[in-house]
């Protein structure tokens, strides 16, 4: 494919009566009418031209993720207890502590992974959902790139969850010093899983669907 070719001249599977399997990527010929209950001849997965109910599923998962996201940030995720002091940490206070006592580089990484990435995921997915729904051809290459970014960075938010798990298992010196997980970490873990599911259920082909009239 040479770069000189105009983007809108490139053939799309739907125009050629082809359909690609989501699981094994086999190129299949699409039967003329209903493609709803067709199975891939190679791997047996259901064939869809677009992921089924992608708007409904993605919105639902995103909403659920947001409902988990609020307690994940406001509730403490970890309790550190020593002889004369009990301290509950939220995600943000953990970053602050790391910035002051530990290493600023790591604090930036944790800040990006735990605070910026989840927020970015919400913003990007909402933008993609709304713009695709409006069938606009605005900034299509950029939107495609945003989608890939979200897919790529999504799971790095689990960082804080693993930190809490490790510290809770390590810091067990009875009364002298202890670390325990608090409910915030559960909400945070669920936020990450739900946003990952949301970005998986979004069909990036919708970004490009403005150039044809079918669905």
């Amino acid at each position, binding site marked *: 494919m040479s770069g000189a070719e105009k983007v809108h001249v490139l053939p799309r599977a739907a125009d050629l009566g082809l359909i690609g399997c989501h699981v*094994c990527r086999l*190129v299949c010929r699409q039967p003329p009418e209903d493609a709803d209950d067709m199975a891939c001849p190679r791997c*047996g997965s259901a064939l869809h031209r677009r992921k089924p109910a992608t708007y409904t599923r993605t919105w639902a998962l995103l909403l659920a993720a947001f409902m988990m996201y609020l307690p994940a940030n406001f509730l403490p995720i970890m309790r550190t207890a020593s002889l004369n002091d009990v301290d509950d940490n939220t995600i943000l206070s953990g970053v602050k*502590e790391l910035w002051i006592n530990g290493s600023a580089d*790591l604090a930036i990484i944790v800040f990006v992974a735990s605070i910026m990435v989840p927020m970015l995921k919400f913003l990007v997915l909402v933008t993609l959902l709304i713009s695709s729904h409006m069938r606009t051809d605005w900034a*299509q290459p950029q939107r495609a790139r945003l989608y890939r970014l979200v897919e790529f960075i999504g799971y790095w938010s689990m960082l804080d969850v693993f930190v809490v798990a490790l510290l809770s298992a390590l810091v067990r010196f009875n009364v*002298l010093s202890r670390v325990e997980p608090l409910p915030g*970490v559960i909400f945070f873990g669920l936020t990450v899983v739900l946003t990952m599911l949301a970005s998986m259920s979004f069909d990036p082909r919708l970004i490009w669907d403005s150039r044809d009239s079918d669905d």
Partner: protein
Amino acid sequence: MSTTSLEALQICEECDTVHRRRAMTRGEVGKCACCGATLEHFHSLNPNTMLALVFTAFIVFVQANLWPIVTLGLNGRHSSTTLWGAIITMWQSSAQVIAVLAAATLFFFPLVKMLSIGWLLWFARQRRCAPGFVPIMVTLHYIGPWTMSEVFVLGALVAIVKAKVYFDVVADPGIYAYAVLTVLITIFARVDMRELWDMRMKDSA
């Protein structure tokens, strides 16, 4: 439509554009001309090399799970943990959701991934189709995005830095094994599943 056979075509997963497949040269990456998504890589590793890598990864994985990851010291007392130690602690401190998540993404999924790719390659190098080929390939497709060993390595690093303020910290063999495992997983996660699928097509034909 032209007379091009379907095997010679590929469809971009992200924008539905149809491309002709072509042979890749070393270091080449095929990108979609429409949306820029990666279509295919050049693969320099044959099934034998790949199998050796998977086998190495399996040995390292066993080490990573057997040895403690970090040891903390406080006033002459010591405390250390393995991955399973952390998972069990989470289960017992009423964070069972996290325990299940960690067990799945750090232990079971990576293990299933390694064993299944090893199984498929073992048969592929004998030019045979592995028993259970289709369900294994479909399982691999679905667990693909859910392995998080590399996040765990970074998490261990953050935990060490946080603990260093209050305790004596010693990094144990487990963390090194995990770091090596991350590199190995990154290499064999790039195995092109389509090549395996295509290989099977030829055999059964």
